[in-house]
């Protein structure tokens, strides 16, 4: 592979990865704090995408949709958490997993019911349309935006988790729920807020993906499985790990498509199995 091709694939791999960062990192936060593997995460992202599409249809611009959609989805997520997840805390995590599986089915079908079956797209803001060039390689402006946006958001979240009081409460909650409760902090509220935050981030990811690709009623399953794989590779419960996992997936798909066409999807699973067998905590152990 020539140096030029290598860098091209590297860049494209990072693109694929950055699309996944928001999904993976929000999934990771939810798991890290609540211990819940949210199978409905992709569906919430899809809901966010469709909401964004509708908002833009109602003549709002892209940036406004990017703000309103996650707010709506976040609010909805709070309701979902209160009615369905909350009664299951402390019980078998398998039950929680399957609850979210059922929720994914419901949300997926609801989306189909309300928005119909046609694929849609979200128009990119005019500023960000068309290609630009990085080191001589043609690269779409919008993807550059996605990369930067995801990176910035990830860094902001990272700082929030590590430097603010709330963030420390979240991390302490991962390790010892009762102790944190003993400090007078209501963990239930924390859980609800975390789930809402995670879902809102998923919605943001949905809107962005809707602009980058298309919106269709089947997009949720692929998103959640890719997100889960990224989280597993990076380390369940590790925020940085999720980001790393997203890039690992992106790179393996990109290089895989070049080197072993037809088997590109294999590489992702090979990495996943390797990690689970030899370093199940993932590539990055701590948050």
């Amino acid at each position: 592979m020539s140096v030029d091709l290598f860098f091209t694939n590297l860049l494209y791999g990072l693109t694929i990865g950055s699309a996944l960062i928001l999904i993976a990192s929000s999934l990771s936060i939810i798991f890290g704090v609540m211990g819940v593997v949210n199978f409905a995460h992709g569906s919430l992202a899809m809901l966010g995408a469709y909401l964004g599409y509708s908002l833009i249809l109602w003549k709002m611009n892209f940036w406004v949709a990017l703000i309103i959609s996650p707010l709506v989805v976040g609010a909805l997520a709070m309701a979902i958490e209160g009615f369905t997840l909350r009664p299951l805390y402390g019980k078998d995590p398998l039950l929680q997993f399957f609850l979210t599986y059922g929720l994914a089915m419901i949300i997926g079908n609801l989306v189909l019911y309300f928005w119909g079956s046609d694929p849609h797209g979200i128009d990119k803001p005019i500023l960000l349309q068309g290609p630009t060039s990085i080191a001589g390689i043609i690269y779409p402006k919008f993807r550059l935006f996605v990369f930067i946006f995801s990176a910035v958001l990830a860094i902001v979240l990272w700082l929030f988790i590590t430097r603010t009081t709330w963030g420390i409460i979240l991390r302490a909650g991962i390790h010892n729920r009762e102790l944190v409760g003993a400090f007078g902090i209501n963990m239930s509220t924390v859980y609800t807020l975390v789930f809402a935050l995670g879902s809102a981030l998923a919605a943001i990811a949905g809107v962005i993906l809707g602009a980058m690709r298309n919106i269709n009623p089947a997009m949720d399953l692929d998103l959640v499985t890719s997100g889960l794989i990224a989280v597993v590779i990076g380390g369940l419960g590790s925020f940085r790990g999720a980001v790393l996992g997203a890039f690992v997936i992106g790179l393996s798909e990109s290089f895989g498509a070049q080197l072993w066409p037809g088997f590109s999807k294999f590489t992702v699973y090979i990495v996943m199995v390797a990690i689970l067998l030899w370093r199940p905590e993932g590539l990055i152990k701590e948050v």
Partner: protein
Amino acid sequence: MGFPGFLKKYSGWIVLVCLLLFPLSAGTLVSGFYTSLFIRIFIFGLVLLGFDILMGYGGRPSFGHAMFFGTGAYVSAFLFKYVTSSIWIALGGSIFSCALIGIVIGYLCIRSHGLYFIFLTFAFSQFFFLFFHSWKFFGAADGMSGIPKPTLGFLFDLGDRTVFYYFSLGILVVGYLLARHIVNSAFGRALVGIRQNEERIAFLGFDVHRCMLVAFLISAIYGGVAGCLFTGYQNFVSPAVYHWSLSGEILIMDLLGGMGTLIGPLIGTAFVIYLGDFLSSWMHETWLMVLGALYVIVILFSPEGIMGLIKKINALWIQKDAV
């Protein structure tokens, strides 16, 4: 003991007799289509028996059981099409291949627990899915059709649906008795012990990993046999048999029916398959939503599944007797 007590004690026999007599009414009282539905229930019930031993009794949730079902299906497809149409050879081939895969993959997976076990089994089954999805010899994404019908080798024609019904019912009954025996044995009790407290069982001198490996192997073989029957019945095979949604359905059937009871998962299988068929005809645009809502409701209100519900009713019953 009263009528209900009689029901409880002989319920197994009653159900069996009903099932045996059922096809005779098919075509007259009841449409022949239901014979097909029941065959499907029997086949998946077989998977669930083995699966319950692994998850319900042993406590290891596998999200990759499609790999055994699929292997049984594809191996049988190959045998039927290119070697022989004898169902016995196909069963043997399926058992052998799934045992092999079960040992290898089981050995790798068995040290993991809970969520990690789920992800590992998921990843391994995805290998199979992707592999067969691309393998031209087996028809890649479109699968293989035109697979000849299997033969019993004596007397009856397995190509006849009613005969196949009895055959699969027979295998299910044998499978159930075997599973019941396994579960009631010392091995079975060790499994339950492992699920409840792995360390303690280890201290008692049991080789935990070996026990779990055996459980994994058993569940793999059950899956393979079911897959073989599936191909024998459908006469075609496609990568859908390896898809992770199948693994998810198996898990749900176990959960809904009631893990760790053997009967529960059978009921769960019947419930999910029947309901899925009924709903998808009745509300063909929104049935997934209704099914999902049903899962959510069951998980929230009766986490021990249908068997849990029956146990509660039973407990109320005993209360009454005790008065």
